[in-house]
């Protein structure tokens, strides 16, 4: 692994971004890195944007990532994916969830929601190392829409392996251990399946 890996997670309050970043920081620690995490959630309970920073490395000082220093991007929602794009390093690795959650500014007709072509064209100006994942579709097929965040973590783990950002020191099992430690016991099995389904989505790309 490179000296430092900076992860930016972006989504909407209620999508499970905080659980995902909690898993990610603990996976980093378990893999032997120093790991820090910072949540930016202000008034997000009321439908605002949520951003979480996770950093792994040999020596991590700041819990925040500086603009332009994001190595890995996990976007839970399409507008949020665009909103934080300029935080990325050129060529950063990205997993983008194909999920639109229209803000009140759109539903009330004041602003419009960007279409998928614009999303893909804009992202492609930053990186071609990007995977678009149908998180809501995969989670719904598993019978639990709330596992969308774990589907994305599965996709992220597989993409990081494929792109060589993590190696054999970090097995998929470690992610599953951290995920199942954070969900009620009766949801452990469906979350395990969600993680595997997310990995499968990368394998089939």
């Amino acid at each position, binding site marked *: 692994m490179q000296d430092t890996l900076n992860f930016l997670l972006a989504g909407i309050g209620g999508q499970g971004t905080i659980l995902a970043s909690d898993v990610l920081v603990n996976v980093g620690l378990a893999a032997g890195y120093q790991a*820090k*995490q910072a949540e930016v959630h202000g008034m997000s309970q009321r439908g605002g944007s949520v951003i979480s920073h996770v950093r792994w490395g040999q020596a991590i000082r700041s819990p925040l990532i*500086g603009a332009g220093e994001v190595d890995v991007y996990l976007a839970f929602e399409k507008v949020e994916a*665009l909103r934080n794009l300029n935080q990325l390093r050129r060529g950063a690795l990205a997993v983008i969830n194909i999920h639109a959650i229209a803000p*009140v500014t759109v*539903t*009330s007709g004041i*602003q419009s*929601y*960007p279409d998928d072509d614009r999303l893909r064209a804009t992202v492609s100006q930053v990186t071609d190392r990007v995977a678009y994942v149908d998180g809501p579709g995969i989670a719904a097929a598993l019978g639990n829409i709330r596992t969308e965040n774990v589907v994305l973590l599965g996709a992220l783990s597989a993409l990081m392996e494929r792109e060589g950002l993590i190696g054999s020191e970090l097995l998929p099992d470690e992610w599953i251990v951290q995920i199942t430690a954070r969900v009620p016991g009766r949801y452990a099995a469906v979350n395990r399946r969600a993680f595997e389904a997310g990995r499968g989505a990368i394998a089939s790309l």
Partner: protein
Amino acid sequence: MIRIFSGNEAVARGAWEAGVVVASAYPGTPSTEILEEFARYPGVYAEWATNEKVAVDVAIGAAYAGRRAFASMKHVGLNVAADAFMYASMTGMEAGLVIITADDPGMHSSQNEQDNRTFAKFARVPCLEPSDSQEAKTMMVAAFELSERFDTPVLLRLTTRICHSASAVELGERVEPPVKQTRFPRNPAKYVMVPGNARPRHPIIEQRQAAVAEFAETCVHNRIEPGDTRLGIITSGIAYQYAREVFPKAALLKLGMTWPLPERLIRQFAASVERLIVIEELDPFIEEAVRLLGIPVEGKRIFPLVGELDQRTVRECAISAGLLPESARVPVLAIDTDPLPARPPVLCPGCPHRGVFYVLGKLKVPVLGDIGCYSLGFVPPLSAMHTLGCMGAGIAVAHGAAKAGNPEHHIAVIGDSTFFHTGLPALVNVVYNQSPIVTVIMDNRVTGMTGHQDNPGTGRTLQGKAAPAIEIEPVVRALGIQHARTVAAYDVDEIEQTLKAFMQLDQPSVLITREPCALLPEARAHWHALEVNSEICNGCRLCLRLGCPAILKSDELDGRYGRPKALIDATLCTGCEVCAQVCPREAITERETGNG
């Protein structure tokens, strides 16, 4: 054992390991989780107080009684608690007392970004500032030792970035400190602060501060990190991490105790470096103290006085000041993503505050607001709140405006928890001095904005015990309010009629709008989506003026006017029926029954 803890979790753990017995707080972002976490540890007592001043008095009482105690609050909470904080400095205690202030640089969820290190200096109280979760835990333990060694309260100053970032913490065991006494102290010379007793205490407090300053010279939390002496950096708190990101090799003096400051250590460090700078968030607190020592130093000339720092800001400022070469700049993309739809915070679908603000907007009256979820009543399209300053302000601001002779009818809005916090004395003042203002107490049965904490109205304590639920209307009547009514918060018509009637009075009145927060489990159990009958809707958009996230513009246009019809998102709608009451054509009905 190593665990990843947020700063708040680490502080709670530190308090438990330090043997704290009693803790009290009022919820406030970013501090809330400290007490929520602490309350889960075995063998401790933790409570939500009605306000921060009460919380500090409670902690002082426990410390007078010889048990370690703390009170935690957001930075502006210390304004409320300042009176108690100041006398605690004068008296000292029998056991350790720590006051935690969680400052909010960048104002992520606050009305200002005051730097509470100034409070430590003001009160002659030591201030500790952790820079990560491990230090948050370690310093919480150290704060109690310091408190008992010097007979002083200690201020533990956190910031949002410390509270809400997570890093590794080594866990320890709980140490039960010896109980100093079993009998409450009878020591009026120390604890009865009448002028005759307070005067001899003041020099003791000044001597104590000098002794703590001497301790600061060798305190383990103040350390010089040797390095390249062409640049010397003094820093504290989270700014230390940014300083190290940007200047990994510079000589650095890290101050864990930022009041009182170690004069000799600072002089020694300053003498060892060629150029001395201070990197600190918000006020030039350390910088001004260093300058007072006659030492040339730069700080706010280079780094911003306003807002939260991060490594990018520190790096850019350092490049501009010539501390780093241009080549140190990190390139940032400038991809054009605009215009993206904004995602402003809004009242949730089913929020019981929505109907009240709709009516207030319709009445076009001045609305003097307060702090809570209902603060969002100012947001368009409701746009029905005109002032918001601090907890409990609205009622007295409305009273003052009325007494100034403004002919309009002034409406104060306040939440249930905020009413108990500081609304009560203001309402007593309205009764005593008689102004015809209407106070709307929006009782959603919980402290909502900070994430559903219990309060004196909920019938349950922080640690899950049953408690008497204080009913607001009898309280208000007992104060002498003759005109008081409790109305269901979803009953738009009743709210409007009651407000109109109250606005005719020449006496104070109180309207209580009551309905549990729609996100509470008991409310969720009754969620039931509504539906727009598209044959009746003519696209008048009145329902859209409610600003409800569940009401959308449909693709279907009204045949007569060509306007988009309304559509309800069944996944978001709770069935509060406020929109159904607002609709002039009765086009919104329950999903099951269809149009009735």
